């Protein structure tokens, strides 16, 4: 056993995903407290070439699990072989589909304790404690592994739990995971890939999100939201009602079964604020809501609630921000 903090580093399109940078920073912070090292386990296309660059993000060492895209659960045996003998203190995984599946398989294969999805992690008296928002945000629980449970404790971290380091140290030392048989967990394969015609914004990385709901009324109704997002360098998101209606792609859905986002600014337009949507955006730093229904639930938890017609207010707001920023209309 040692006091290292391992983390999963997903690569996406040849470079580290935002989650990899966040978890590297988180692992570095926790490792400084525990007296261990931050060790990345990298996977995805570009992982081999980019592994050393995670040093600047906080990693002391990086082990490359794979250099190709594919279901990450097939890497569970390789990850188990990498961490197995060393038994680090904690193992951070991103709460993405790949991160969850790989973490779940590790939990099952090695009989490890798992916490999450969490929104804060700290070390108290040498033990890892994680804070979780449960029961649709009505309760905060703090959990830890049992004293006699094996190491590491797996921690599934929501995006935004940690903040990436800026201008950090040098290169991480890089090694390759021991080859291992993926077994049945490697049997699920991607047999077809259908990218969309147009690129879809990555909501999890957006600092500003303009979200539309049922009140937007149509695909065309999203146009004023797009314009507002453009002047704020933001992205457009949606509630499940808007995605179900086909007004926007499902990839833009925020909520329990969509993306969980944590932007600096969230503006909800024509969104009632049902609990399923709320759990996807409740950690936004600033929440503005525009809704013509004065009794919409979002009015209960928004920071600024404007009662009115979004189709009248949003274009005016876009024009006003253009004026203040000196952008020609």
């Amino acid at each position, binding site marked *: 056993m040692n006091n290292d903090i391992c983390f999963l580093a997903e690569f996406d399109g040849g470079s580290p995903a935002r989650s990899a940078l966040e978890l590297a920073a988180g692992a570095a912070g926790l490792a400084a407290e525990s007296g261990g090292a931050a060790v990345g386990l990298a996977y995805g296309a570009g992982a081999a070439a980019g592994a050393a660059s995670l040093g600047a993000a906080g990693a002391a060492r990086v082990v490359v699990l794979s250099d190709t895209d594919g279901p990450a659960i097939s890497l569970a045996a390789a990850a188990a072989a990498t961490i197995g003998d060393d038994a680090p203190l904690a193992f951070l995984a991103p709460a993405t589909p790949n991160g969850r*599946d790989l973490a779940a398989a590790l*939990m*099952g294969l090695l009989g490890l304790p798992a916490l999450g999805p969490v929104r804060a992690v700290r070390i108290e008296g040498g033990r890892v404690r994680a804070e979780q928002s449960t029961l649709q945000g009505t309760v905060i629980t703090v959990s830890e592994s049992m004293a006699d449970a094996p190491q590491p404790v797996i921690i599934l971290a929501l995006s935004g739990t940690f903040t990436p380091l800026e201008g950090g140290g040098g290169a991480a030392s890089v090694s390759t995971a021991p080859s291992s048989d993926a077994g049945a967990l490697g049997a699920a394969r991607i047999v077809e890939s259908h990218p969309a015609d147009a690129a879809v914004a990555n909501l999890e990385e957006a600092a500003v999100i303009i979200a539309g709901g049922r009140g937007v009324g149509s695909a065309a109704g999203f146009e004023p939201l797009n314009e507002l997002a453009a002047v704020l360098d933001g992205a457009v998101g949606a509630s499940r009602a808007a995605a179900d209606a086909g007004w926007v792609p499902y990839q833009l859905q925020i909520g329990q079964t969509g993306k969980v986002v944590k932007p600096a600014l969230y503006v909800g337009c024509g969104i009632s604020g049902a609990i399923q949507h709320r759990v996807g955006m409740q950690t936004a730093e600033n929440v503005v809501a525009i809704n013509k229904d004065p009794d919409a639930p979002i009015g209960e938890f928004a920071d600024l609630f404007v009662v*009115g017609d979004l189709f009248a207010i949003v274009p005016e707001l876009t024009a006003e921000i253009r004026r203040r920023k000196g952008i020609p209309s």
Partner: protein
Amino acid sequence: MKIVVCVKQVPATTAEKRYTADLRLDRAASESVINPLDEYAIEQALRLQEAGAVETVVYLSMGPESAAEALRRALAMGGEEAYQVTDDALAGADQWATARVLAAALGKLAPDVALMGMSSDDARGSLVPGAVAAIRGLPLLSYAAELMLTGSTARIRRLTASGFDVLEAPLPVVASVTDQVGEPRYASLKGIMAARRKSLETWNLADLGLSAHDVHGAALTRVVEVRPPETKAPTERVENLGPAEAASRIADWLAARKLI
């Protein structure tokens, strides 16, 4: 072809929740429903059965005795029979223990597909499908927007960042679904009546060949603190303003927070 749908009983969103002295949710004291995300797994299984791709739909749940109610509700939606794993030694089970127990029960039921919702509504855990696959040594097809079964192969459609992928694995598999598989049906009165006559069998840990020691006293983790969320500043309301004035107020508010 047999599907076992794993269902979890969870507190209703609207229910008042109480905690026991050792910081576990008092599940008996809270109004309960089928985990809403598991209803999509039920719906997917029943659609496959209606399409003739599946003969038998079986439900499996682990929980207190009162969780039998969730299985009766599932049986009212359709399907043939249900199994409940209940044991005092499982109170406060965490995701690992749950996966261990479900894996053992699935070993007895030996389905072609073990189907689950993508996560639970209460603790939003999402590790059980992957852990069950790892323990059983089966492929995992997760986050399916649609499950398709042909011959000895399972396929799923899964949304990606910009489109969708099709994944494939040889049966038997563990699979999990999202809410894109289609709206769950309501139980009809006829269905509710029929459910009363369907078989619901109860197993304890010993029936699965497990002891309390095998599940580490039901958990490898424990809750050390429960508290209400931070209270936030009250909402600022803006009403009865014209669009231009309302827009100006919003812009002022954003500027004061250095957001523009």
